[in-house]
């Protein structure tokens, strides 16, 4: 069901919509003021849990629960930190940039509430280097908030110092992995760390740290202003603890690609046809990638398999994947992941083999190289798909592709390995016949296209 919201997007496209004046005119900073002056830290984390905000970075972990992992007391004389992940780099994901550019004060206010809730006095916002305008707007917002006394030694008159620093990456996708991001923040190569210890135990600079996605933080003021329970109830999946509203994206072969703020529970069909204006050239759908290139592709003919009557997801049993509300758990049971819920649409006419080659080139380029299965596997996958497209491969090699992908799974320090292998296996399984045509020479690279009209 489409329920449009404009909590974050109300400032989008307006002249100076990113300024403090515009933000406060619409009720901005009321939530942070109330939280800091009227609530205790425990009350903040308890309230935050009720919002049922599932992490917007892709993994979907409940934000409030994550906040509660932080130590009650900082280790003697040591700081605790909030680290905000704005390294948005996954192909198909284009939502965080819009918040930073058009509504940066929501991020600043979210940082204030989150810092107070987790017991931190400093927030780091890690922004990928390419987003120059986004960083400029964030710094400007921080400066404005400092001048107003909303940040600094006594925010809103409360003796609870809060500072925010924007940090710059260096053009690597892997720094979106939370521990790689922390290494990069410390001035090191962005190589993921082994867990445990988890960031809440030893994160940035070895101190307890909560890592949240930027959209997760940006929506926090809205949740506290509305009341977290009421915020959660906007969602059609409130009972599954997947609450509130979020930014949905639609891109690829649709007539009107865009980012839009909707209550959780819109379906992919609604997103593609009602929001996105339908498929380019009124074609049929070949496949949809639900939320970033690491989430396995879905065919438009797939249905949900949830035969267990006791499962709360049973109500979606047998429903077409395009018609279930887009949520963390519904996409998991569809055999994929919600990810960042920016849907990439591929129309009939797209060559799935070429699409896979495009994605595998991305993963080969972005593997940090620490773990052999990922470093070698991602390059191997790319090499074989290229050979298939060039008509230089064999059925044996095509069969091997699945094994290569499978050997990456579970054998790496971080989830990048799975993020490479899962979409690869989905493409191979779901478009097997197309791959075979190239192997048999019935099609050549000249026939392969990614654009349609």
């Amino acid at each position, binding site marked *: 069901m489409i329920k449009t919201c404009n909590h974050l997007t109300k400032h989008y496209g307006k002249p100076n919509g990113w300024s403090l004046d515009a933000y406060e005119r619409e009720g901005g900073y009321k939530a942070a003021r109330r939280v800091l002056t009227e609530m205790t830290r425990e009350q903040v984390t308890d309230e935050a849990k009720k919002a049922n905000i599932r992490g917007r970075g892709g993994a979907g972990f409940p934000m409030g629960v994550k906040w509660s992992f932080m130590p009650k007391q900082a280790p003697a004389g040591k700081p605790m930190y909030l680290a905000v992940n704005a390294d948005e780099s996954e192909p*198909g*994901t*284009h939502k965080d940039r819009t918040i930073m550019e058009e509504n940066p004060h929501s991020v600043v206010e979210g940082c204030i509430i989150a810092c107070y809730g987790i017991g931190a006095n400093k927030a780091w916002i890690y922004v990928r280097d390419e987003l120059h305008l986004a960083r400029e707007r964030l710094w400007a917002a921080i400066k404005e908030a400092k001048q107003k006394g909303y940040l600094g030694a006594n925010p809103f008159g409360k003796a609870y110092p809060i500072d925010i620093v924007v940090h710059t990456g260096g053009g690597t996708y892997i720094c979106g992995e939370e521990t790689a991001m922390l290494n990069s923040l410390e*001035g*090191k190569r962005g190589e993921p760390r082994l867990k445990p210890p988890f960031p809440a135990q030893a994160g940035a600079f070895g101190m307890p740290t909560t890592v949240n996605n930027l959209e997760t933080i940006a929506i926090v003021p809205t949740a506290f202003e509305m009341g977290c329970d009421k915020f959660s109830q906007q969602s059609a999946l409130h009972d599954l603890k997947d609450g509130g509203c979020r930014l949905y994206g639609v*891109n690829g072969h649709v007539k009107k690609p865009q980012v839009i703020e909707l209550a959780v529970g819109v379906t992919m069909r609604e997103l593609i046809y009602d929001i996105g204006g339908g498929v380019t050239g009124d074609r049929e759908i070949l496949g949809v990638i639900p939320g970033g290139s690491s989430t396995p592709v879905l065919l438009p003919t797939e249905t949900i398999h949830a035969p267990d009557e006791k499962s709360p997801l049973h109500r979606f049993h047998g429903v077409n994947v395009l018609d279930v509300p887009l949520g963390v758990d519904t996409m998991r049971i569809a055999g994929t992941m919600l990810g960042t819920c*920016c849907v990439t649409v591929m129309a009939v006419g797209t060559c799935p083999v070429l699409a896979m080659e495009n994605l595998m080139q991305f993963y080969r380029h972005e593997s940090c190289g620490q773990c052999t299965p990922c470093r070698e596997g991602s390059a191997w996958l790319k090499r074989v798909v290229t050979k298939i497209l060039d008509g230089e491969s064999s059925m044996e090699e095509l069969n091997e592709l699945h094994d290569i992908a499978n050997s990456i799974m579970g054998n790496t320090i971080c989830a990048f390995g799975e993020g490479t292998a899962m979409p690869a296996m989905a493409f191979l399984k779901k478009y097997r016949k197309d791959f075979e045509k190239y192997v048999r020479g019935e099609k050549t690279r000249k026939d392969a296209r990614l654009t349609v009209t």
Partner: protein
Amino acid sequence: MPFALSADRERELTEILSRYPTKMAATLPALHLMQEQEGWVSEEMMIWLAHKLDVSPAHVRGVVTFYPLFNQEPVGKHQVWVCRTLPCALRGAGDVIKHCEKKLGVHVGHTTKDGKITLRTAECLASCGTAPMMQVDKEYHENLTTERIDQILEKLQRD
């Protein structure tokens, strides 16, 4: 002449250092600052930074070689990055790249003979909703058409 930061940038580096609990944490922002001045990061600059931050030159070298946005050799005056990844490719990034190559007379990864423009492809620039797109220096250009690309590139060529 030995490498030195301009007075303004030197002040900025001091400010950057004050933000972090360790000097090492300033490695990336400092490298950006240095590259902004010189266009690339030389061996000499890496050693300079290592002394400045009390870290080993190997550490700085490790960082520079890890992050693709640090240029390890001189590049053109302007940087053109065309996003080539799937969502852009579905909307014609392949043709954008070909058009840029033809217009500039260089292949991806190379700099025009006059040293003005370096053409490269980028991995997803978080602009999938406004594809195809390219980044020119610090600016994004979205929803590209052939005419728009020509305007943008011609302006750079004139500069």
